[in-house]
């Protein structure tokens, strides 16, 4: 699977993935608004045939109430047949990285259903988001949402690991 920045041609595939998996749906113009306004923040996972099997749709908050530039994850989903590959986490990590490197985001936020244990495990345990609060009846069916938050910045340890790996990959070259 490939995980890369979303292109305009991917938007229909992202919408299809969303409509296949989630009850919170958006018209295509909303996807286009994200893709054009904040290129590099949304990512897709594609199978070897190029079909979209997962996506993260993200943006920068336009007028942050606290005045601090921060990102927001609008939607995240992976097709059922392609689960257990860690795609959701990897999509989030890529988007998070772009929020910092391209837009200077200091933190990122998202909403998740209180009953969605799998998603809660991903965000809280795997990606180290904190629960900031509960938004009552956030979803159309009346369910509450956890408002989650994560401070951003690439840990120094990860940078060191990348440098070490980079050196090893380069050393595979034939001299």
């Amino acid at each position: 699977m490939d995980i890369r920045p979303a292109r305009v041609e991917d938007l229909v595939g992202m919408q299809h993935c969303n409509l296949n998996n989630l009850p919170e749906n958006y018209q295509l113009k909303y996807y286009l608004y994200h893709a054009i306004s904040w290129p590099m923040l949304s990512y897709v996972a594609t199978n070897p045939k190029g079909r979209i099997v997962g996506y993260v749709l993200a943006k920068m908050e336009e007028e942050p109430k606290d005045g601090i530039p921060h990102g927001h994850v609008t939607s995240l989903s992976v097709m059922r047949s392609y689960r257990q590959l860690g795609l959701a986490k990897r999509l989030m990590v890529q988007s998070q990285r772009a929020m910092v490197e391209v837009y200077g985001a200091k933190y990122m936020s998202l909403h998740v259903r209180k009953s969605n244990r799998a998603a809660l495990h991903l965000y809280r345990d795997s990606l180290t988001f904190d629960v900031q609060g509960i938004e009552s009846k956030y979803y159309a069916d009346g369910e509450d949402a956890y408002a989650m938050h994560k401070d951003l910045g690439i840990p120094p340890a990860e940078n060191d690991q990348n440098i070490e790996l980079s050196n090893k990959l380069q050393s595979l070259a034939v001299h």
Partner: protein
Amino acid sequence: MKKSTGKEAALFDRAVNQFEDGHFSRSLKTTLSILKKKPKHAEAIALEGLNLCKLNNYHDALLRCQLAIGLNAKSRFCWQALAITYRDRKDYHSSLNAYKNAIRISPKNEGLLYDAAYLQFHLRLYGPLVQSWQTLVNLDSENLEYRLCLTLSYYLSGSYERCLSYCTDLLTFPKLGSNASSRLACFIPNLALKLDLHFEDSFRIFQEYSSFILNDWLRYEQLANLYFRFQKYDEALHLYGKLIAKYKDRNDFLWRYLKSLHELIISKGLPKQVLYNKFRCLLDLLPNAMNIKIIILEFLVIANLDYDFFLQHLLIYSKNKGIPSAILLLKSLIRGNLLLAHKIKDFLIFELQNTNRDNPTACLWNFYYLSCLTYFTFDYASSLHWIDQAISNLPTLPDLYLLKGKILSRLGEWSEAIRTLTFCCDLDRGDRALASRLAKTYFYIDENQLAYQSLSKFCKDRFGGVPIYLAETECIWFLIEDGESLLRQQSYGLALKRFHQLYNIFKEWTSISFHYHTYCAENAQFMQYLEMDEWTKTLWDSPAYLRTALGATVIYLKLHESPYFKYGENATAVYSMNENERLQFDKDQNQSMTKLHLQEESRIKKIKLDEDEDPFVIDPDLLGMELLETKDPLQEAMKFLYPVRLDSLKGWGYLKVLASVIYKSKGLHLKTQNILDNL
């Protein structure tokens, strides 16, 4: 807008200000007070039209603007009002013509030239587009947006050298921000590619402008791609190594890294074993990267190299981690390579009989992978056998029943497939993907109501139920499957309803790009602009739209051939009726449809809406009967066919044949011939 004199002039100016402030009702009232005393005041009539347009009364708006032109064809204001009205109605060609007339009267009006230029962008009139932006730049050379748009229009018109020259000038333009400079600098390599420059020139250009690229990694990527394009694999390998360390999931980097490694080994005359060893090192460096295992296997299979070790490594890893999609990810490789399929099968069976015999989890995945493998090689009987083995091992995993449902569908055992998928949905009631699969299966056997029911949990209530909500959320797969199923069942009115809903969705998608021409050009987002442009060009050639066009064309052609066709399965019976019987039949049909309509209206009115919810929209043609009553079915069919590039489309012979019949009937012989030449 131009200031006037006198009492009416003061009123007119007030009306214009009100319009510009967005107070359209007030502006309309003020305008009407002018027209009471001066009913032939052309510009007031035009302003009335503009206000009506903004208040969504397009029909009257157009009439008023056209009347205004009739009274004073030399008024720039009147032509501009007409242009805006057409533009808001999305009649962009007519809008552009009106702007051209306005520009003839005021050739240096920047506002007019600007608006016309954006229409030219949307209509892909690149020659005139360049002229428009050139004129604007000549009028105001310090305007950054004009210069950016001119640069982009040079690219679109194929003047790549000019585009490059303008890009490099813009990079030194003081008003250009650092983000826009960075985007422009990233765009320049595309120009080098288009101009087919040699390595030295491409590299020189890169060195000159890469300092404007803010993100180091984008710079590395540009340089790596440049080296790779010119087969400088040693340099490319080093850079891709750096990029992969940071972006482990980018398959394009991985593929080029492997290719560079392979090419270097060949060029040095080294044995293949060196390559295999290097690939093994790669697996060790990134032990949990599934995509790397897949890519390496793909690379070796395509290059006809020895892949046994890597195949086994992948399968063992997948089984240990319990990755359901392992075989799915190899689907296209398996279908193109029977030997690979046999090797996978032999390995899995060996594992089943030996290594994994006492390990239930490993056995489960062996069974599942064998079922997937035989499914992809069209051996459905074996696939069913293996999935049943997997289910007996673990009877509560929905994915197993999902696959079994698909297998049974392929075998034509529909009731068993439905039973299996229903059980699957019961195991995970909150999963929309499972419900969608069940719904699709219901559509295959033309049980539409059951399909709607299986998805109802995920839909909001609407007048017309699940299909209307899914049309609103642009659920393309649902509308196509429902439409084709209704067509099979001869419910032509409803089928046409679905096809029209699809058409409107595609039309809306192509028109939303109009709002982004400005934004992309102003922010130097040339790549996003080109992607959007390319996407809108290919939308109408997508399989989803082609199925829509085919369905609609079939119905409209039949309607043209026989007026009884609209009666669907009752057509034969109605044909043999006398006039009185037919009238009575029509009356009974209308009554039953009215009853259905009223029942639905009554149902929907009982539902309490939240404060922030819009009221339900009542569709007067719930069952699509008005669509069947069209006076010119061939014209309606042509509406669906018009956006499709039939003369260059590959495949879809049946659609082309139907289209040629329609165009021939309409006397469009050139179009007919073009399609037949492409058959």
